């Protein structure tokens, strides 16, 4: 496989120092797509997005066009943009929000027009202080240019877009928790059914929730046509996608790559991408799609970066975040840190998630600090099985949201792949990497 010559769909302006300004945006074709869209019928705009087969980029990978068509027509509906980005090791929306806020805003306005909503909320995690400023500035400019607000580009269509700051809570990335949070409450996920946002969303009204990257693709799709987007990639994974590469690689960063045409090996080792492992070490394992995903080993390096391809191999592409662990990485410590995160961020509504995460953290901590027993491995798997019965992937859901059933991924993977390492900790009474 190779790195293809696919166009940069969402990162075309990243080379400019002033990529976030209205001047640069207008000088590089900005707001042409919105001008074009408002001359089309809303149905025709939605049809382009449908033709693009754009899969949601927030983690679940649901087709955006299909989600939109689920909205009941002629209702007060809301569009809510998910910029909470807090799945550990995910940092692609950060780039889009800070470096190309106008592209996001234009995409949001195109979606709003297709859905004919009159109110949009862009929910950004509170830790994006600069991002919040940049998006607000972009909106101020868009209103000023007649691209947002009343009668946009003299089309007769009006929409108001509000930037809403979060305040530090991972769970608010889950769409129903996000809606609770946007209503001024604690971010407790709602149970689905009945609370599918498309049916009962913000303030009880039908609501579309889409991710920042999903929205940022729309200007290109409208300018170039859904078919041109669908011609990139393969199978269900069309277009390009942002991959956030981190951990023990030489060049961590966000890379826009054509879906399916590139492999994990390319991403991690190609000199123009990851550049290989730090210190010339060996790859030990990698996480293919955020910390909720089961781990892969070196034998999976030649898998293509595609949603179904990764799914069929037993994990998920999720949020497109790849974490590389090398021969210097302690698998127990890595699993412990991920589990600590879940224990801290569990909202506490469901017993298996709340109690299970705490248990798992304590047992892993004991093993990592050299006080574990051999039986602890079975205990870990047992608690994991209580949270996600059968330890299958995708997991069985026993809880309100999928945070809970994601907790076992790292522990189960680490034990399956590195059981000896756990036993070393137990036998030596210490972490061999310390």
């Amino acid at each position, binding site marked *: 496989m190779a790195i293809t010559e696919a166009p940069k769909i969402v990162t075309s302006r990243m080379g400019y120092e002033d990529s976030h300004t209205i001047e640069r945006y207008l000088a590089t074709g900005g707001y042409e797509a919105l001008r074009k869209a408002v001359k089309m019928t809303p149905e025709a705009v939605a049809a382009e997005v449908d033709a693009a087969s754009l899969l949601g980029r927030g983690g679940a990978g649901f087709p955006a066009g299909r989600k939109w068509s689920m909205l009941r027509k002629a209702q007060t509906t809301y569009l809510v943009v998910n910029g909470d980005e807090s799945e550990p090791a995910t940092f692609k929306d950060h780039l889009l929000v800070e470096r190309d806020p106008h592209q996001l805003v234009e995409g949001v306005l195109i979606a709003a027009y297709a859905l004919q909503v009159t109110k949009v909320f862009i929910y950004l995690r509170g830790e994006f202080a600069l991002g919040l400023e940049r998006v607000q500035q972009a909106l*101020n400019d868009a209103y000023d240019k007649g691209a947002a607000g009343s009668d946009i580009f003299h089309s007769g269509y009006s929409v108001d877009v509000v930037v809403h700051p979060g305040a530090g809570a991972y769970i608010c990335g889950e769409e129903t928790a996000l809606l609770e949070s946007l209503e001024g409450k604690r971010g407790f996920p709602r149970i689905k059914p009945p609370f599918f946002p498309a049916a009962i969303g913000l303030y009880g009204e039908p609501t579309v929730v889409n991710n920042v990257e999903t929205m940022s693709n729309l200007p290109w799709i409208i300018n170039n046509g859904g078919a041109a987007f669908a011609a990139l990639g393969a199978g269900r994974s069309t277009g390009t996608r942002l991959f956030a590469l981190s951990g023990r690689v030489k060049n961590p960063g966000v890379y826009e790559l054509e879906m399916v045409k590139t492999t994990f090996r390319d991403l991690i080792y190609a000199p123009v991408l990851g550049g290989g492992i730090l210190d010339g070490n060996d790859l030990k394992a990698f996480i293919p799609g955020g910390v909720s995903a089961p781990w892969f080993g070196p034998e999976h390096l030649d898998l293509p970066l595609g949603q179904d391809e990764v799914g069929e191999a037993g994990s998920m592409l999720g949020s497109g975040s790849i974490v590389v662990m090398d021969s210097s990485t302690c698998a127990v410590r890595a699993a412990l840190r991920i589990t600590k995160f879940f224990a801290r961020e569990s909202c506490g509504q469901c017993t298996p998630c709340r109690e299970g995460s705490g248990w798992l953290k304590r047992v892993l901590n004991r093993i990592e600090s050299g006080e574990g027993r051999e039986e602890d491995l079975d205990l870990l798997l047992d608690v994991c099985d209580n949270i996600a019965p059968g330890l299958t992937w995708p997991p069985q859901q026993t809880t309100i949201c999928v945070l809970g059933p994601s907790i076992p991924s790292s522990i189960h993977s680490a034990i399956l792949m590195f059981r000896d390492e756990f036993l070393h900790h137990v036998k030596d009474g210490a972490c061999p990497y310390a």
Partner: protein
Amino acid sequence: MNHLSPEIRARALEIVALYPDARSALVPLCHLAQEQDGWLRPEAMEEIAQIVGVTPAEVRGTASFYDMIHLEPVGKYVISICTNIACLLRGGEDLLNHAQSSLGIGVGATTSDGMVTLEEAECLADCGRAPCVQVNHRYVGSQTPESFDSLVEKLRTGELSDSIPPHGTLIRVRRNVGSR
């Protein structure tokens, strides 16, 4: 007598007007109160409660859910060091340990001069520049122990006060298009 200054209160009312339901403004108003006071004072909770139409206990209960809203005073600069997976693999825990000994405080504590509060953060979505550090939620790029110490020094001398406003000031760009 209002606790929020006339300017902050006016801004609060503008924010409320953006939402179909006033309660949606609760968290943004907590941020705003922190802009005035650096943290969420009980007096501010009462006023927010009255503005958005809930009880002060509901404001407290909601605010306590969110890590960025502080129910106790914090330093002028809150330094967050991420130790989550990508940062762990790049020395995040070592940096946090260094920060504790260098500042002479534990995680969650504030230096005696009231300048710095230290936090251990979960992923801050800057994993490409690990270990990731934020000061008052402004990214300052990955840090070594040495660069961390000089960062703190610059905070103390005020050298960075243009790029990093005091704790609580989250957003300096205001919506200037009214409510529609």
